[in-house]
């Protein structure tokens, strides 16, 4: 039974081996001429502006959290959509009821200005 995985395991092994060999050979035999310019982070050939880890405005966080909250409802929709025909009208109305609180949440968020960018 485990043999079915043998091909995948072999592929993972070979891939990892090739990657390791390439990196090791390159660092062993490749020429090393360090230069201040070369050690800079790569930014399309330009001189880098500012640090690489820049702070993201908190606004992004708010949108992200709101997104997660509404996005997660999808995991209830998916199984429902698959069994939609078997569930019939009962399933339909159950989903309508399920959506009402989400709608209320959405109205609340909208009116409170959670969706305004500025």
């Amino acid at each position, binding site marked *: 039974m485990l043999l079915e995985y043998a091909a995948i395991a072999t592929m993972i092994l070979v891939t990892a081996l090739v990657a390791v060999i390439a990196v090791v050979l390159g660092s062993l035999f490749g020429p090393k001429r360090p230069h201040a310019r070369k050690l800079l982070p790569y930014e399309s050939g330009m001189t880098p502006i500012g640090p690489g880890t820049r702070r993201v405005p908190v606004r992004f966080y708010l949108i992200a959290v709101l997104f997660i909250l509404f996005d997660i409802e999808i995991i209830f929709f998916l199984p429902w959509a698959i069994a939609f025909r078997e569930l019939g009208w*009962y399933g339909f109305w159950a989903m309508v009821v399920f959506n009402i*609180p989400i709608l*209320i949440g959405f*109205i*609340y968020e909208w*009116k*409170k200005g959670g969706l305004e960018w500025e």
Partner: protein
Amino acid sequence: MTITDFSVILPVTLLTAWASILLLAELFLPRAQRPFLALLAALGLALTLGISLAQSAQEFAPGFGGMVVRDGFSNFLNVLFLLTGLFGVALSYRYNQRAQIERGEYYPLLLFSVAGMMLMGQAADLIVVFLALELLSFPLYILSAFAYPRPQSEEAGLKYFLLGAFASGFVVYGIALTFGASGSTDLARIVASVAAGSANLPLLTAGAGLLLVGFGFKVAAVPFHMWTPDVYQGAPTSVTAFMAAGAKTAGFAALLRVFGAAFPALAADLSPLMAILAAVTMLFGNLIAVAQTDMKRMLAYSSIAQAGYLLMAFAPFEIEAARTMAVAGALFYLLAYTLASFGSWGVVIALEKDLDRHLSIGDFAGLARRSPWLAAAMTVFMLSLTGLPPTLGLVGKIYLFRAVIEGGMVWLAVIGALTSVVSAFYYLRIVVNMFMREGEPAVEREWWLEFAIGAAAVVTVVVSLWPFPLFEWAEWAVMKLF
């Protein structure tokens, strides 16, 4: 789906819908109409209370394929939780204006939390237990941090959240193991699979242990109590009052439901553990409370100690006769605790003039002269928490101790009695301060607050003189549980 399904969860549904409408109403009401929201919230709670009382005559009914249930136990708790909510609104109304935290989300959150507690009382499936636990907890996390930008409040909110979420991790893992051991999350089916011998007992015991840890956090039992003093101190006092009574009662509702109904087969393994937990909680809570000078912290440790007394109800589970009495005693004691706890937090609110300065025990000096009725009410609450006559606290403790002794755990009853004596020291110190010391405490005169405190004090005394109908109700409530 039938009419019965809806009728079973009608109170919870109504309260949730009411809270949602309240949330929308807040958006469209002008700022000046904000006080109106408190009235609306109280109206919703009162309406739900009416429906719950009307349903209390009806018989046992399962709903939604056995996910939820309506029985005597849930009826008793529904009434208790709705009273908790009403008390919560009464205590918050003026306090929130004074603290300048009169934000529109307050009352909807409070109502959602009450709905979660009621669902907890009705849960007959571990999935619903988990959902109810989160529904009651999330609003409380937010409410604890409600006094932002006051740093103490934010800190309390974060601490409560981190430890609460940690506890819910244990609960979910415990439920997963229980599910694996018995093949079901339905409490009745778990019992059936244990009876049929098809359950994996070691796995079930592990699951029950993890559930115990999770709920232990919720009810603040030692050694899972460390969040309690900080959260109770930092949260707005109106929220603390609600949390101290409601969240603890809901935690015990879950413990009683899950451990009382689903795990009687594990009683031999769990009872000694519960007894030790109860003893440690009583000892630790009471001894630390003695050393406190800050009023809110003292009440926090006192509430830990009270959780210890309630945990005694789980100790005599091996003996059938003692078990029913113990659970009925626990329900009775929960009512007594709710009244006394709300009353004493109400007095704290009345005395808390400067919200950034901590109220110390010394601040109670001279209250008897300044405001004799308030001092008298506070004395009643302190007596009730200690377990002295003429209060409900004494009656509740007698029922609990009797059940424990009948369950053959005399040593636990002795520890309970001894720690009650210790608790008299710090409870009665406040009474001494109020009556014997000179001082000029600043007292807020607020009608709703005084009404709530007065009602709690009167009920505590009057019902204790003739407690039998109430205890019969509690006994009737647990009859169907086993």
